[in-house]
């Protein structure tokens, strides 16, 4: 299968400035050294907690953010080296669906204006063709021609998200980034929207990057996925393989933290201690070491390599890959205990 989107060692850093704007205090390493490929026709999941850089990575894929380093290849072409006109043309084939359908739709536009806006920008000016196309799109997402002149405020959250989807597919894109498309919606509407996305994918031959913090959704939706923590990939590859045998302690913790809705007598809540540390000037070693239940002394200073452990299953963890053969601190493979893990020590 060919890759529609390839990231090669992509990093996105944002400078943090202090009182004097020219003095750089540090940088937020939102995404650092990420390489991955999204294959044509698949649903690729991007999982992680807030602040892990998944949205920044998605924005980089569609060209909304320019990477500090590395390449973003869309259908084999480096997106950020294209001349402006070419870039705009390519951008039409990649679209986004946003998380919050309440703030992503202009409240003063009616449905027709909202859905036809991308066509207007492309240079379409025939009202009749546009209207027919908008009605066709509305029917595809489960709305009707009667809704054409209504405003976002007349719709419920689920219906607004349908408008957002209609807008995103209006220019026949091939690549869609869905950034937490259901996390603002009610449980009973949640499933409706995900089913709609699955149906559209099949009908229009779309490729999705599906961003979510809900692992159960990701497991059901995705063919392949990547787990991020503090700007780095922890584990990536085939979804079935990762869920069947999660290798990274962070992936294991995430899966354990999913509260199942089955009732069981013991009602145990599995806890991963600690908070996500700040992405400003992160430590040199593994980004997860402070919260990792299996951290070893070497994890603090030696960054783990991102290696393929079985076909289409990549992990960045010393426990799985072993330490590299280079100058290692003393006792690098000893487990860390108690106070050693307190941040700042």
């Amino acid at each position, binding site marked *: 299968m060919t890759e529609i989107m390839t990231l090669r060692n992509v990093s996105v850093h944002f400078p943090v400035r202090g009182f004097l704007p020219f003095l750089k205090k540090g940088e937020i390493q939102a995404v650092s050294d990420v390489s991955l490929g999204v294959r044509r026709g698949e649903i690729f999941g991007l999982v992680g*907690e*807030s602040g892990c850089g998944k949205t920044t990575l998605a924005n980089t894929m569609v060209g909304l953010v320019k990477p500090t380093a590395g390449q973003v290849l869309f259908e084999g072409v480096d997106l950020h080296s294209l001349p402006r006109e070419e870039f705009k043309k390519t951008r039409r084939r990649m679209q986004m669906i946003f998380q919050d359908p309440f703030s992503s739709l202009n409240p003063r536009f009616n449905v027709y204006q909202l859905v036809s806006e991308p066509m207007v920008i492309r240079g379409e000016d025939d009202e009749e063709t546009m209207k027919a196309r908008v009605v066709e799109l509305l029917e595809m997402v489960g709305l009707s021609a009667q809704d054409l002149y209504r405003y976002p405020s007349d719709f*419920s*959250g*689920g*219906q607004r998200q349908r408008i957002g989807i209609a807008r995103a597919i209006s220019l026949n894109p091939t690549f869609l980034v869905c950034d937490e498309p259901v996390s603002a919606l*009610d*449980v*009973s*509407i*949640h*499933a*409706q929207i*995900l*089913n709609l996305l*699955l149906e559209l994918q099949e009908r229009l031959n779309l490729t999705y990057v599906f961003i979510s*913090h*809900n*692992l*159960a*959704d990701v*497991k*059901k*939706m995705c063919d392949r996925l990547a787990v991020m923590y503090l700007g780095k990939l922890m584990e990536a590859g085939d979804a079935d393989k990762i*869920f069947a045998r999660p290798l990274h302690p962070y992936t294991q*913790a*995430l*899966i354990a*933290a*999913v*509260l*199942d*809705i*089955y*009732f069981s007598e013991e*009602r145990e*809540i*599995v*806890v*991963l*201690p600690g*908070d*996500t540390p700040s992405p400003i000037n992160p430590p040199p070693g593994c980004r997860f070491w402070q919260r990792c239940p299996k951290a070893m002394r070497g994890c603090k200073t030696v960054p783990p390599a991102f290696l393929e452990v079985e076909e289409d299953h990549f992990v960045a963890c010393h426990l799985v890959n072993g330490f590299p053969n280079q100058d290692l601190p003393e006792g690098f493979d000893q487990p860390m205990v108690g106070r050693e893990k*307190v941040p700042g020590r």
Partner: protein
Amino acid sequence: MEQVLKLRNLKVVFPTDYGLIRAVEGVDLDIYHRECVALVGESGCGKSVTSQAVMRLLDSPPALIRMDVLEFDGRDLTQCTEAEMQEIRGKELAMIFQDAMTSLNPVMTVGNQIDEMYRRHYGDSKQAAREKTVHALELIGIPEPKERANSFPHQLSGGMRQRVLLAMAFACMPKLIIADEPTTALDVTIQAQVLKTLRGMQRGCGTSLLLVTHDLSVVAKMADRVYVMYAGKIVEKAPVKELFTNPHHPYTVGLMAAVPRLTDEKKKFTQIPGTVPSPVHKPSGCYFHPRCEYATERCRREMPRLEPMGRDRQVRCFHPLGVGGKSSD
């Protein structure tokens, strides 16, 4: 068992330009000593309005509030003056809100905000209050509590802020805590931490807890008894084990099926058709009938009553599932 809260026939109506919004239509609630009761429903079902009415936090006007009984710890709250309510709120009846960032004062250190509880309710001195605050922060699992007490809310992480709210709610060892979506704004791993702390504190302090949430997985871990609300009415009431093993109301069944699980098959989501009805134009008969696959002519005409169904269970449905040989699948 000692009853902490008794609410009968609560009705809340908001008059608007578009018509009357009947937010809550005759809700009864019972909470006993040391138990955790969950009030579950989707947005707009009236669960938050119910909890605010119990705290007597709803402003009237605009809200029109009627209730037959509101008894808290043997006292009739409907007869209390605002001054008396202020004595009760925080001390005996506390609340935890969803969004810790907006419910904490951004220009006061979190320590001072917790100190206020002890100074206001017990008349403690500054030093005595601070000692208790540091102890409370320690109990709730905040590292270096002495230093953290001098932090402002924006200097703490989301999970930490939620813990500060917990410390504040448990400060005076209240009889009942109402937690309105306490973990919705948090990340998965942090949510598990906060829930575990909340449960530990509730058991340790012997407090009763009313957990208002839309998340059935939280209910499965935390609650002893559950009330399910839909469009302003209780549709099902059951002990947690019975609710999850044998739900009776089609809405409860649908809601449970709609929550994705790690064990499910791929690429297909079970959905409830339609949307939650607008609170201004509620359907005739049973409010759930337009979305219910078992609806009959009678459901379209008549609102079912909340009928008892076995021990400590009630269901508002003419055709309850999972009863007498009918399968709930």
